[in-house]
């Protein structure tokens, strides 16, 4: 039975009358696991809000064509009625709660339906059991981890008894621990309890093999609808090159093999499938690939940043950083990783003087940081916060960049030249008079970088620089950072994203429970991940491929961390 049926379904936004969805035509059967992909502005979130009746019933707008969820017309049925059949979960768990305690939140929906008290209790307990949070009833929601919060959000939707769950980037704000909790849960809800899942996501490496179908959207239209393997094989190149989407690493590898003239036997969706479909390569090429050594990444400049037994305690007595010692070389690109709450942000706030170590010393260029104020340090260390809006203080893009130089007394022609050249560097020329809030997410982040860049810091720290960005915008930012690095700026990425560290970092620091548990090269981290005390780091997909090839085919490759690395060594062979 089809749970979702759209027939020439279109939607226009209220007031502006802009058409956001165009003639959508598809069906989703009971028990399917569907992933919706598409660039920002493709209409994915609009689709989610239409399926749950929020558009047009609550937030307005108008529809054309037919849309049915479990037989109910989405434009004619009230949201409360629809909510017992289809539930919606968002990206930010904090903005979807309206209660303080877990049990209140989960009981909220059934109470609104005026169900008898006993049933409210029974449903709430059952929903918490389904998401694996028994015993959490009286916990305050704001004391939970990101993954637990998102599970509470899912439980509170499950308590309404829906057949279909729609999730709009539910893991975007989570660390890898939280993300894996949610993926496991969605898999179980689908396989064991038969829930139909519609999931909007950007990065789908781990998930794609569980999906029964992939919907690709662009510009409010449905571009492709089919089995993930077929859609990726047919659309993958365009998805990456034209739409700027994140493609699973194994898919990128398949395209690389095709381009090299040795297509895989079947288009793979996992590392194991790559191993099964691995093409027979000519002996010299195999040998060359096997003996290639990934480029050495370490950097031997003088120390820029040194931590010497750094310890920090919050006012409530919590020791967030314990006895941390490390060295960072000038010109390195450092990844600072760790679970949420592991102490990595606390540590990084020390580097700009926002926190002072309670024990130990921090040196920048051999000088103690503690003796300098935030103002003086800001000239040498830039910090790009995760939410660019938090950092904006002016009303135009140009004023935003000019803000700090102006404080330092720069003005006139020299100032406007500086602003222009900085904006050109980050690719924002022509947007001088726009209000920073009206920029796209990628532009906002680049503006945020520009405001730091303008002072030519020795060290530039970026908190989750790829958060909320597609592949194209992430690449743009990383290219910009690499150029800065060439000029001698040391870069530090505070991040959960394995890909960024695997592809770009020359050094990794890993925090776990307030302690530094790893300091070294990315290769050493990822190869020895099982022996390092951390749960917060995903293994690179390419490394999984290397291991699967060895286990299943006896093909031995060096520990490539990304497909790009493998491509590099292929290219260098072709040249030689």
């Amino acid at each position, binding site marked *: 039975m089809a749970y979702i049926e759209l027939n020439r379904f279109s939607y226009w936004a209220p007031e502006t009358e802009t058409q956001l969805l165009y003639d959508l035509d598809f069906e989703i059967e009971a028990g399917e696991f569907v992933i919706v992909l598409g660039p920002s502005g493709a209409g994915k979130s609009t689709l989610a809000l239409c399926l749950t009746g929020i558009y047009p019933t609550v937030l307005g707008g108008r529809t054309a064509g037919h849309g049915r969820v479990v037989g109910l017309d989405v434009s004619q049925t009230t949201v409360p009625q629809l909510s017992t059949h289809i539930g919606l979960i968002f990206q930010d768990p904090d903005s979807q709660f309206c209660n303080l305690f877990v049990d209140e939140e989960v009981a909220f*929906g059934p109470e609104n339906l005026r169900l008898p008290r006993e049933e409210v209790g029974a449903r709430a307990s059952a929903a918490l059991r389904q998401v694996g949070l028994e015993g959490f009833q009286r916990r305050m929601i704001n004391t939970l981890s990101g993954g637990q919060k998102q599970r509470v959000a899912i439980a509170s939707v499950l308590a309404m008894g829906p057949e279909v769950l729609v999730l709009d980037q539910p893991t975007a704000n989570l660390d890898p621990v939280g993300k894996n909790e949610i993926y496991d849960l969605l898999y179980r809800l689908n396989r064991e309890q038969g829930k139909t899942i519609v999931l909007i996501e950007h990065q789908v490496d781990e998930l794609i093999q569980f999906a029964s179908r992939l919907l690709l959207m662009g510009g409010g239209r449905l571009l492709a609808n089919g089995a993930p393997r077929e859609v990726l094989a047919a659309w993958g190149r365009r998805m990456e090159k034209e739409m700027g989407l994140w493609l699973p690493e194994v898919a990128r590898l398949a395209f690389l093999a095709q381009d090299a003239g040795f297509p895989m036997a079947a288009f793979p969706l996992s590392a194991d499938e790559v191993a099964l479909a691995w093409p027979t390569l000519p002996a010299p090429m195999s040998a060359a690939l096997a003996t290639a050594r990934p480029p050495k990444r370490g950097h031997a400049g003088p120390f820029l940043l040194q931590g010497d037994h750094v310890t920090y305690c919050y006012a409530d007595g919590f020791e967030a950083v314990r006895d941390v010692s490390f060295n960072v070389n000038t010109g390195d690109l450092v990844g600072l990783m760790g679970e949420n709450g592991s102490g990595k942000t606390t540590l990084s706030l020390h580097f700009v003087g*926002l926190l002072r170590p309670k024990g130990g010393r921090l040196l920048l260029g051999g000088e103690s940081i503690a003796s300098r104020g935030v103002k003086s340090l800001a000239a040498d260390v830039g910090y790009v916060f995760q939410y660019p809006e938090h*950092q904006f203080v002016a009303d135009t893009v140009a004023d935003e960049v000019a803000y700090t130089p102006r404080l330092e007394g720069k003005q006139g022609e020299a100032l406007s030249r500086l602003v222009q050249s900085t904006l050109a560097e980050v690719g924002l020329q022509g947007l001088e008079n726009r209000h920073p809030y009206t920029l796209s997410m990628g532009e906002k982040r680049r503006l945020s970088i520009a405001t730091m860049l303008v002072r030519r810091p020795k060290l530039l720290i970026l908190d989750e620089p790829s958060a909320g960005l597609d592949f194209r915008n992430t690449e743009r930012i990383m290219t910009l950072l690499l150029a800065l690095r060439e000029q001698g700026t040391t870069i530090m990425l505070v991040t959960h994203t394995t890909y960024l560290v695997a592809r770009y970092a020359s050094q990794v620091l890993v925090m776990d429970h307030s302690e530094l548990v790893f300091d070294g090269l990315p290769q050493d981290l990822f190869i020895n991940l099982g022996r390092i005390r951390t749960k917060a780091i995903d293994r690179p997909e390419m490394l999984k491929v290397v291991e699967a090839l060895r286990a299943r085919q006896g093909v031995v490759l060096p520990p490539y961390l990304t497909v790009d690395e493998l491509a590099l060594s292929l290219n260098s062979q072709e040249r030689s």
Partner: protein
Amino acid sequence: MQRFSFRPGDSFLHRTDPVSKFAWLMAIAFLGYVITDPVHQLALTLVIVACALWLARLSSRYFFAGFSIFLYFSLLLFTLQLLFAPAEGTQVYFHWGIFTISEASVRFAFNLGLRVITVGSSALVFLTTTEPARLLTSLMTTLRVPYRFAYAFYASLRYIPVFENEARNILNAHAVRGAGLDEGLFARFRLIRRLTVPLLVSGLRRAKGAAIAMEGRAFGAYPTKTISVDYPAFPAGVIFALLWWLAFVVYFFWVLRTTGFIRT
């Protein structure tokens, strides 16, 4: 540390129902208003501090962290009153230009300063010991407030710690740009202006998200909802509030008598 948010506990004031506790809060406000003797005002302040430490069992560290904010405002008002309040014919201790310190201005200044501390810290006790869900249930059951309105109030309470957190992030983000590090009154005003825009933007975004999430769970589908939690009655709390009102009435009449409004 997040101030002004509920902290679970099992103290006398935690068990007192929110409506009685609100009545207690009102009694304090009225009492503080009619007291004009600085010694009495100080006594009231000390009683409130005692209530916070013993009846609400707040840790002194937590309580005085919140208290210090009121102290700041209190000192500000104290100084203004001290310098500018009229002498009203009482003894003048000091006079220079527009500034006059007199017996009356000292009394006004003490009263006003202490009032701010009293009302502020009792409100802090109220917010810290009152589980918002219980307040909500009380509003709906005892005071018969329609639940759509009651929830609007509830939602605003939930967002206090969220915004506190966000404000701290924004201040940090501005500080590394060299903004907001200046001292002084004007710098404070500029700071508030700069904080307002990002907080408003994220507030609107969150409000929209929360509204959608609530609608998606049948909020407001019917005029009433199931109330599935019972809170145990606590008569001692009701008596406590009544005693405070009694204290207010008795004190009020005593003031009227001593000032000659009522003749005996």
